[in-house]
């Protein structure tokens, strides 16, 4: 077997595994999909039913009496916490990458870059634990009251600070996890831009900042889009860190940024135990449906990335 065939085989194995997983998930979740219907996505009610009641039959599926599955609050929690993380991490990551690539003396640069890469390698549960022990008390007692006092007039910034667990905290912990990802990728791309580009701009009288902003950043725009998408994927799927700081809200939508939430990934972990108690098995199947929705969202995000990169690529071919 020659090398090309070998790599082709490997690539198809990866593709097949992916398809098998999604198909399996879909098949396993199918009874739940039939039972829950579209309301699964728009209802705020996750209720396992009376565990010792006699199972009843609804839409041809056996479930516990009172059981109902709707995960709007999970979708909202997942998307909102990821959105907050991205909104902070992209500008911070860009700034940090520019600083590392252009703003620090070379000796410090390699050390700082090394630390950024270390940060990217820290297991998420460590971030979660740190958030739990250090960040939450600080946020709950100091930062959130302060923000409510001074920024409370902005929609979703007012309200009660709560205990520190919640949407913004989850967003911040996710931010910490994805900033290194964006920074490291973007920094590498910036550093590999030819020095002659910088010289061209500087010789025309561009300041250091103008050179970065008008020449280097446009040259690495595709890398920025790509790394942001990867980061989005990571934030959407993050489980442990969010589980530890989100407050594990059930069936409510946050009406300000301080309130508890749950995300799909962390909910699957936190509910698996109780769901296993359901003798009809429908609770676990519904959790599988949560996983399926999460998968679909991730696939959609990646698809969006493809479209963006394709569009950007066409523009680049025409203009840049």
């Amino acid at each position, binding site marked *: 077997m020659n090398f090309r065939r070998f790599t082709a085989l490997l690539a198809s194995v990866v593709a097949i595994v992916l398809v098998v997983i999604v198909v399996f998930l879909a098949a396993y979740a199918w009874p739940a999909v039939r039972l829950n219907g579209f309301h699964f996505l728009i209802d705020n009610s996750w209720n396992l039913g009376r565990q010792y009641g006699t199972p009843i039959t609804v839409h041809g599926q056996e479930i516990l009496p009172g059981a109902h599955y709707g995960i709007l609050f999970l979708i909202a929690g997942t998307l909102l916490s990821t959105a907050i993380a991205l909104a902070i991490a992209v500008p911070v990551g860009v700034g940090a990458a520019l600083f590392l690539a252009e703003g620090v003396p070379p000796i410090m640069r390699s050390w700082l870059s090394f630390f950024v890469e270390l940060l990217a390698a820290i297991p998420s549960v460590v971030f979660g634990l740190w958030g739990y022990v250090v960040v939450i008390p600080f946020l709950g007692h100091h930062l959130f009251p302060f923000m409510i006092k001074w920024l409370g007039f902005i929609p979703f910034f007012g309200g009660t600070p709560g205990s520190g667990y919640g949407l913004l905290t989850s967003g911040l912990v996710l931010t910490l996890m994805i900033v290194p990802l964006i920074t490291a990728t973007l920094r590498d791309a910036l550093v590999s831009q030819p020095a002659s580009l910088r010289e*061209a701009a500087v*010789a*025309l009288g561009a300041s250091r900042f103008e050179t970065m902003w008008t020449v280097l950043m446009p040259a690495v725009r595709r890398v920025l889009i790509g790394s942001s998408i990867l980061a989005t994927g990571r934030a959407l799927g993050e489980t442990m860190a969010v589980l530890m700081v989100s407050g594990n809200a059930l069936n409510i939508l946050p009406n300000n940024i301080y309130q508890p939430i749950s995300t799909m990934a962390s909910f699957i972990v936190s509910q698996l135990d109780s769901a296993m108690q359901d003798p009809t098995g429908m609770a676990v199947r519904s959790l599988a449906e949560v996983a399926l929705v999460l998968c679909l969202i991730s696939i959609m995000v990646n698809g969006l990335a493809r479209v963006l990169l394709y569009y950007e690529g066409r523009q680049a071919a025409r203009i840049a």
Partner: protein
Amino acid sequence: MGNLTESEVIIGVPGPDRTIQDSVNEASKSALKIAVGHLNFHYGPRQVLFDISLEIPDRKITALIGPSGCGKSTFLRTLNRMHETVNGTRAEGEVLLDGQDIFAIDVVRLRRRVGMVFQKSNPFPKSIFENVAYGLKINRMANRSAIAEIVEKSLRRAALWDEVKDHLHKSAYSLSGGQQQRLCIARALAVDPEVLLLDEPCSALDPVATAKIEDLLLDLVSSCTIVIVTHNMQQAARVADYTGFFLLGKLIEFNKTDVIFKNPAQKETEDYITGRFG
């Protein structure tokens, strides 16, 4: 050595109450664009230029020749302070642009007045139009029609307009090597520099593209002072009014090109131009 001798400057007509010497001084002053005095240059601990003094005449082409590593690029880059982008460099001595100390002028203004074209063409990954407009945009010029006008004028001055006018919004990378280099010249010309520094601009080009750039320089010199580093002796002989010969960080000889090539004063110069070394 280094300074223009009296016989080489254009002598003004002496008036009733002026001596010939006054006119000479005046004429040499007005014909002088850049005056370099006792320039020493260090990369960290290593000195690469030694006590360079030289006067670059206005609206003439001055060529700098010399063997590889003798400091031509370093000297050229000092003239618009590009050396400051490299850590650990130190330039001592005097460089006057129209009598003004370049180290006292705001560096951004200096680089607008003294443009630079590099050995390897380095267009931005942007459209042809955006490349030429870049210098205007970072100088806060916002008027679109004025920018378009200057872009056209600059491309014409760089003898590139006819070749690109139908696809200004295509990538600059779609141009040939020679066209890219002329684009870089157009980009430098867009901010209307008084001096244009070129560091071996033709070394990566074929003879046809080289000839185009040489013609272009001969056109441009009526409106701007040109300093060109070249390895190509014929090129210096063809385009330059004045030529300076560098060797091991020292300026060995500076004179009219004719004199340098036909009747050099220094033995090293003669050896170099007759190809005995370098």
